[in-house]
């Protein structure tokens, strides 16, 4: 079984859940005898054993060093990124700003060429920035196409007010695909109900979570803890999708009851100014700290030092962060509007808009430490069963099914 996979992100580049998920899935597919050829839009350092092609190498057009793909797939289609379109006589690159939408089309153009050259049985494309590439590869090769939905335009908009150009790509690509895989039932419902896709075509494959060897790191926020403060952490992109504004409103209710609670918001995003202003307006400057975007060890130290983690997302297709927090020994309150709520039993769950209940859960969890301890002990056991291996087995089965019934 050979699969041609398109993704916009891949580790070790600092990025969101998409890269992490592609990596985990690819690694386990390889382990299960699936030969994965991964196509990425931009030359980058990569991790793991997959055979990798860079679309910008193929067309001899590179994206600029400063091109920030970090939040790329999650921004509006019109977000500008810098690309190298060629080189001048002295060998210096010529940059041109293009929209992500334009880049996605260019990626698709290259995908069609790559698909003609490569040998494979099935195509797998991750998220909207790669859907066009997947469709192009299908058209040029006639092979079966799987689209993998890690997020939709509805999640990014946190409402029905979606980016019309992204929605158009999603809907048309889903209709052309042979299978659509979503990371949760939550997302499946969106694809079926909002995009109007035939439910029989949409399968759920929950994300896995890699069991990591967690080592104890040097604690952070030591001074606050020494003063007897309790730390409640929210970590993620600060955008309308992540519901940080609801977290701040719950914080106000918590602090009214217990002034010794400190809320740490770690992350960055387009809503940061609004959230900082909200904190000021609600008189929470003493109790809310902004930690900036944290990665790797800094992030893990924060997970370990926090007493409680909150994921208040308005619309979260999966949501890996509570599982990461759990690995570092911190229990979570998670939004019911998330995919992870379908698979993690050992967490408190709340509707993102119910700030009263969110505050109640924060206060109660801090008040009764036994509940946090038990969610960690039992949650960690449950984590052992959420592996990429299980996800990869489902995906492999799906490939086999498609190839078997492919009309050639």
């Amino acid at each position, binding site marked *: 079984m050979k699969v041609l996979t398109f993704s916009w992100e891949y580790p070790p580049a600092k990025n969101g859940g998409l890269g992490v998920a592609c990596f985990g899935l690819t690694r386990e597919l390889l382990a299960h005898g699936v030969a994965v050829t991964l196509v990425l839009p931009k030359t980058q350092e990569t991790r793991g054993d997959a055979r990798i092609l860079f679309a910008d190498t193929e067309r001899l057009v590179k994206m600029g060093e400063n091109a920030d793909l970090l939040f790329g797939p999650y921004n509006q289609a019109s977000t500008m990124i810098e690309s190298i379109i060629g080189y001048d006589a002295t060998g210096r690159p010529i940059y041109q700003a293009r929209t992500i939408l334009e880049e996605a089309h260019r990626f698709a153009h290259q995908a069609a060429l790559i698909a003609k050259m490569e040998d494979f049985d099935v195509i797998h494309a991750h998220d909207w920035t790669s859907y066009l590439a997947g469709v192009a590869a299908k058209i040029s090769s006639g092979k079966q196409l799987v689209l993998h939905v890690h997020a939709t335009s509805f999640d990014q908009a946190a409402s029905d007010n979606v980016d019309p150009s992204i929605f158009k790509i999603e809907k048309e690509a889903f209709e052309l695909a042979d299978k659509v895989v979503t990371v949760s039932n939550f997302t499946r419902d969106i694809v079926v109900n909002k995009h109007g896709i035939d439910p029989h075509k949409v399968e759920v494959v929950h994300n896995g979570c890699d069991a990591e060897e967690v080592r104890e790191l040097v604690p952070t926020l030591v001074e606050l803890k020494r003063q007897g403060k309790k730390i409640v952490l929210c970590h993620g992109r600060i955008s309308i999708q992540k519901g940080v504004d609801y977290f701040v409103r719950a914080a106000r209710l918590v602090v009214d009851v217990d002034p010794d609670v400190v809320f740490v918001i770690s992350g960055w995003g387009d809503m940061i100014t609004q959230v900082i202003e909200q904190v000021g307006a609600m008189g929470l400057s003493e109790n809310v700290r902004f930690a900036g975007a944290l990665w790797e060890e800094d992030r893990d130290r924060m997970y370990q030092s926090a007493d409680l983690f909150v994921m208040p997302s308005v619309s979260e297709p999966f949501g890996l962060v509570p599982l990461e927090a759990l690995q570092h020994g911190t229990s979570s309150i998670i939004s019911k509007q998330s995919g992870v709520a379908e698979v993690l039993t*050992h967490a*408190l769950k709340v509707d993102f808009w119910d700030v009263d209940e969110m505050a109640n859960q924060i206060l*109660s969890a801090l008040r009764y430490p036994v509940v946090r301890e*038990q969610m960690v002990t039992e949650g960690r056991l449950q984590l052992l069963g959420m592996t990429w291996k299980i996800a990869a087995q489902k995906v492999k089965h799906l490939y086999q099914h498609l190839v078997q019934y492919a009309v050639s």
Partner: protein
Amino acid sequence: MLTVCPYFHVHQPYRVKKYRVFDIGEDTEYFNDASGTDLDNRYIVEKVAEKSYRPTNKVLKELLDKHPEFRFNLSFSGTVLDQFEAYAPDVLESFQELVATGRVEILADTYHHSLAFFYSVPEFKRQVQKHERRIKQLFGVKPRVFRNTELSYRNDLAKWCEDNGYLGIMSEGWEKYLGWRSPNYLYQPPGCSKIKVLLKNYKLSDDIAFRFGNKEWKDWPLSADTYADWINSHHGNGQTVNLFMDYESFGEHQWEDTGIFEFLKVVPEMIMRHPDTSFKTATETVAAYESAGEYDVPDILTWADTERDLTAWIGNDIQRDAIKAAYSMEEDVMKTRKRDLIETWRKLQTSDHFYYMCTKWSNDGDVHAYFSPYKSPYDAYITYMNALSDLKLRVAHVLKDKETVLAAAEQKIEKTKETKPEPSDQVDIPSKEDVEDVPASPPTEPDPGFFKNAWDRLKKIFPVVSPERKST
């Protein structure tokens, strides 16, 4: 000669409503959900009355009228009796009619369906006594055979029951303790000389209680005929077949459409078709047969799950934390001598609260095996602990007020008797009502006459007290 001893357990807890941290110190009502959902106690009692209690009692009454030899046993928690009285008095009356036939025996129990025996024997004893008074008041009978919450049992419980005059006690007939022996005989607990243990025949009991409507079961659909044959096959290798189950098996656990009522209507007759088979109540069974040997149960045995232990109630950390928190309040709660506080504390001892916090199923994914009105075990725990925190506050307030009053009284006596009298809001008189459940001198009370003396002294200082102020 083979006799059948059926026993149906009737129980409903007082479920704690959605109670948040913000409610602590603000809201003293924990059980008054009126949302028409599964947290609404009145709604549940009315629903189960319609599905189970009314139709089942109708069938049972017909059976008693039709078959003079038909007999069975009932056990009630006090919490279900209180709720019948408040929400479905006709159901209570129909139970009274059954008991009035003289062929329906009522078993002894804890009033609050609690696990008190394993946490506080004095509190356990008070609940058993309260239950006995309530049964006497409503049914005019005195229970002689004991059954404990969730059929939980241990050697020392049997000993306690013997010492307190019970003739029999019920337990699970479990291979671990029976070995090769049959549950269809009476046994004797070690260290006891009079009391006998009646063992549940779990196979025949669970055929009705759990498997009856299960279409996957190899014996589905079960006819009364077949079932009677299974019972009568014990002739020659048993004396009593003890069928113990939740009363709500009829109509609530096994819905009407499974045919459970049709089954119940005819099964006694089918069983008695065998000329040598009849029915006995628990007391009659204990009087009729001798012990066949010793039943030695050093660890807690229950009728639950494949483990037959208490892990569904106290198997995880939040459950153990919650139950420990409840029982650690005993001394202070009893010291208040406030009837409402004591009663609320006891309602919070009902085993169901801890069952809702069970996480056993999360490992095998069998969510439906453990029904709960809460969204998760963690929600159940938080709700419970918040309510308990509020009760703790109320108890502390009462105790502090008592101290203040006493201290003030002492001071005034020492000073002079000319002090101008003040309104006596703070005074709480331990009326007969308040202390009804409290023994005259509980072991935790250092000085039984303490409050009374103080009151006598106070009365000397303030001769006039308006009667409305007597209770707060």
